[in-house]
């Protein structure tokens, strides 16, 4: 099927206000689908601007958004709610930095919750590609802390 024909189908979809289109012929098959085909979802929740520091919890929607940054990267999600620290003490070096290799047992950060410092393990082997949270920032459950390219 030529790209022109697909373009033509898309124009038809738009012009006719279609949500989905499927076409199957002996030598090809195409399925086109618009967003929202499955109903009004609640808009991604956001921290209201009034929530100044220390309340800048990342919006819940950031998880999927961030995860989309590069194909093949996987997040290390926060297993608990708390405050994120990159190093064991204010003066100390960060547990990990971008480019470091980690394995499942590597400690990558500390999350403080109820005055307790919880060491967080990578639970995955690979290379730290990006640190997603600033030192000292609050994190919620499931929020990506690091993006890792798996080994």
């Amino acid at each position: 099927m030529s790209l022109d024909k697909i373009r033509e189908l898309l124009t038809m979809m738009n012009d006719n206000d279609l949500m989905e289109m499927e076409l199957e012929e002996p030598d090809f098959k195409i399925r086109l689908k618009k967003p929202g085909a499955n109903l009004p979802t609640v808009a991604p929740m956001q921290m209201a601007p009034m929530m100044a520091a220390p309340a800048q919890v990342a919006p819940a929607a950031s998880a999927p958004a961030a995860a989309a940054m590069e194909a093949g990267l996987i997040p290390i999600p926060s297993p608990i709610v708390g405050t994120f620290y990159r190093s064991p003490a204010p003066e100390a070096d960060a547990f990990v930095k971008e480019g470091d290799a980690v394995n499942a047992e590597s400690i990558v950060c500390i999350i403080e919750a109820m005055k307790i410092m919880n060491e967080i393990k990578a639970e995955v082997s690979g290379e730290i590609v990006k640190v997603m949270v600033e030192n000292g920032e609050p994190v919620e459950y499931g929020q990506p802390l690091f993006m890792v390219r798996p080994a």
Partner: protein
Amino acid sequence: MFSRILIANRGEIAVRIIRTCRRLGIETVAVFSEADRDSLHVRLADAAVCIGPAPSNRSYLHIPSIISAAEITDVDAIHPGFGFLSENGHFADVCRSLDIAFIGPTSQSMAKMADKSGARNMAKESGVPVCPGSEGVIGSDEEGLQLARDIGYPVIVKASAGGGGRGIRVAHNDVSLRSGMQQARAEAEAAFGDGSLYIEKFIEHPRHIEIQVVCDEHGNMIHLGERDCTTQRRHQKLIEESPSPAIDKYTRRAMGDAALRLCKAAGYTNVGTVEFLYEKGQYYFMEMNTRIQVEHPVTEMVTGLDIVEEQIRIASGEKLRYRQKDIVANGHAMEFRINAEDPARNFAPCPGKINMYAPPQGENIRVDSFVYSGYKIPPNYDSMLAKLIVHGKDRTDTIARARRALAEFILDGVKTTIPFHLTMLDNSRFVNHDFDINFVDEQMKL
């Protein structure tokens, strides 16, 4: 007054608390499990924090996660709603130890009310009627017979170690009590290895009537009248109303006074509900719920007060702004619980997707809910989707208004209790308030 409150709950009660906070100019922080990311309380709060996966014990019941969420969002108070951690004294203590106000009573008064026999004794000492019966186990059949004659038949014999309905007998006279005690003892010995029995007056046709109390931290207490929650199915409340069609103003006042005597004895603060069984002019203390209740809007509708606002003001140290004489009940109100349950299949829960949700609107009604068209009901939590509260000038007017509102309620995609409620409104025993706590269960058998 607080500037930011975390709501340690979900569903309609979380949304409802947000409403009052917003009106009072208090910022709100919602917490949510992964299953509730699309829930309305998340969208309506000023901020929201994911605290864990779907199972409650790892999210809404997980104290460290909730406290951490409170700390990172720097709130000065936590409202526990009902259910979940609302009657957990340890959670209240943890909050307060971290200088976060817990919007509810002290853990001490929670503990006093959680201890059922202690609460019963406190009630008796405060002159609050309790269901007459033996003090602990009876020593002999003769003692049992004497007691039964004292408190009057019918009585119920229960095995002290009992459970599952075994070792229970109802007796209407000496003869049946004598044989009942023997049978119950034998059954209990066989089943539990312990034949000790106790005896209570058997209330055959009780109504469930409860008193809403409001107590500040300065020793001021008022009650907001009663709610009648007799329309229950297997002890699950389905319809609640106020005032109760069963009691007169003298009983109302006496029950209100009794509830406040108990609160005074317990040093109770914040809002709570004292539950009674009522039959033929007599009322008997059952238990006290040390939190806001599902059916609180019924009282709000008739009194014009906002009970959540009172909770918040009390927890922030304010004095009550009303005295007992300021509380006037206006008209009649009824609440209908709209649950995702199939009345035709024994009220089996029906999680699923709500295709279209268009609740009734217009005059004299209130809907408290958290769902919307396209909402997927997670299977992890309870089945209540919405509460419809109807206000009328009297009970008849309220029933007519409720009928129009329920008939207009569009909730497509899952089975709900709406058809059940419509049936009740056409049931002459319901309409004539000629029923007791066994009514719905009896109707279901027909």
